[in-house]
């Protein structure tokens, strides 16, 4: 019993560590890809690790009081929590203990914690940035939840682990005609979720001095960077779990540990690919204003999602 518990704890902390390591890799990867598109050399691909290390090695760390500190705590803890509740490469550590609704709301813990700390700094830029971030959230969540609800009703489950299981043997949701469109809609929502251009409205460095992060430096900024990097992993994994079968290609019963390895590699390749798509858009677009983003999501994306809902409702499949 005790050994089991220790095993579980080690497995979970290993998963969190893995998430952070992949997240930091993604930071360097993103900067490299963007640089290559801009015809630059770009930083080394391990730049993310250096940045985080440097931030945690800073000599002074200023804070604006205990509410300000909650940002660092809740953002890192919350995003790690959300990661644990996702099935990763078919391995569901805690994902059977909750479902998709829980994940959607767990994703709000780091966001609200971060907003709390940013607001506590008392900087007006931070407040404006948070306002934009929350409104963007409202904007992209509508098409996202519409598609997710359509999937839940279609597959008659709300559990993400079950959804991944149903998509095994390459019965990916992407290959169902309705959800191919759904995937496109969610991919657009993902662009806002990842806060890549044209939706990097909240952290616009040139307008509002990086918005919510304006007062964060040293270890606080390091914690926030960890959150942002891990958020990329969590959000792309959510997409992969929803539409690409969570990266499960080999069944564990048949192939044993090789299946774990292969599934894991496939999952990693898929989330990298999804993130790569977002980066391609990010590298060439300017920035929306916030009401333009709201109108984009609620007019075009949500309208497409509404048609999808009607399609699923009618049960028509071509």
């Amino acid at each position, binding site marked *: 019993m005790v050994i089991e518990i220790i095993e579980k704890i080690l497995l979970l902390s290993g998963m969190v560590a893995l998430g952070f390591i992949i997240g930091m890799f993604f930071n360097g990867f993103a*900067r490299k890809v963007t*640089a290559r598109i*801009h*015809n*630059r*050399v*770009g*930083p*080394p691909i391990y*730049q993310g690790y*250096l*940045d985080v*290390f*440097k931030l945690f*090695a*800073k*000599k*002074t*760390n*200023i804070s604006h009081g205990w509410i300000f500190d909650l940002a660092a705590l809740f953002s890192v803890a919350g995003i790690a929590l959300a990661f644990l509740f996702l099935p990763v490469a078919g391995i569901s550590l805690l994902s059977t203990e909750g479902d998709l609704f829980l994940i959607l709301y767990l994703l709000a813990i780091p966001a609200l914690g971060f907003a709390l700390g940013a607001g506590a700094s008392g900087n007006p830029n931070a407040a404006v940035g948070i306002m934009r971030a929350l409104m963007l959230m409202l904007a992209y969540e509508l098409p996202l939840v519409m598609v997710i609800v359509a999937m839940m009703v279609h597959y008659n489950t709300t559990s993400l682990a079950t959804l991944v299981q149903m998509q095994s043997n390459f019965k990916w949701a992407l290959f169902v005609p309705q959800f191919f469109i759904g995937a496109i809609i969610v991919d657009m929502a993902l662009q806002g979720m990842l806060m890549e251009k044209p939706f990097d409205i909240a952290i616009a*460095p*040139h307008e509002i*001095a*990086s918005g919510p*992060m*304006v*007062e*964060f*430096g*040293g270890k606080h*900024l390091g914690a926030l960077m960890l959150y942002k990097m891990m958020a990329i992993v969590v959000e792309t994994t959510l997409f992969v779990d929803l539409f690409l079968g969570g990266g499960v290609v080999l069944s564990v019963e048949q192939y044993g540990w090789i299946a774990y390895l292969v599934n894991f590699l496939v999952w990693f390749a898929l989330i990298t690919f999804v993130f790569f798509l977002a980066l391609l858009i990010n590298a060439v677009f300017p920035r929306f204003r916030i009401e333009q983003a709201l109108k984009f999501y609620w007019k075009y994306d949500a309208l497409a999602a509404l048609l999808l809902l009607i399609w699923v409702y009618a049960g028509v499949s071509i």
Partner: protein
Amino acid sequence: MRNEDWKKISRLVSKRSLWMVHFCTGCGAMEMPPVMTSRYDMERFGMHAMATPRQADILLITGYLAVKTLKRVVQVYEQMQDPKYVIGFGSCTINGGMYWDSYNTIKDLSKYIPVDLYIAGCMPRPEAIMDAFLKLMDMIDKGEAIGWKKYRKYYDQYKRNQRMAFAYRLDEVKEIKEDDAK
């Protein structure tokens, strides 16, 4: 692992991840875009322009400083978090440059905040800026870029000089002189 080793590793990593806030006064800001974009691309050294001093490691001052501007520079410098480095850019920060005889610009920046590195020239070319960055990295690696320690150590002296520059009435100058005598 000994403390010294830890510091060495820390410096080794930190020099490859320098974030910069540029205080764009004067005409020097014009030379920054080529440094950042595809011609010279400073990001290959892990350098990045940041939005606020809280996040930055380098303060780059790109030209002459009026007394009023100096006030803001000091504010920004003090908001940065240790370790922090200052690069004076162009001859204006060294000796006032073409404003050498102006009544309201400061002549020597290092009197007011510790400058780790100067880039001479009016204007310095992007190559010179890149060279300065590499030199600064070298200095950090060797532990020579200790401006932030100097600012802590000689804080009173720097403050006195700043007050002297900000003083615009005779009695304020007199007060400072009296304080000096103490």
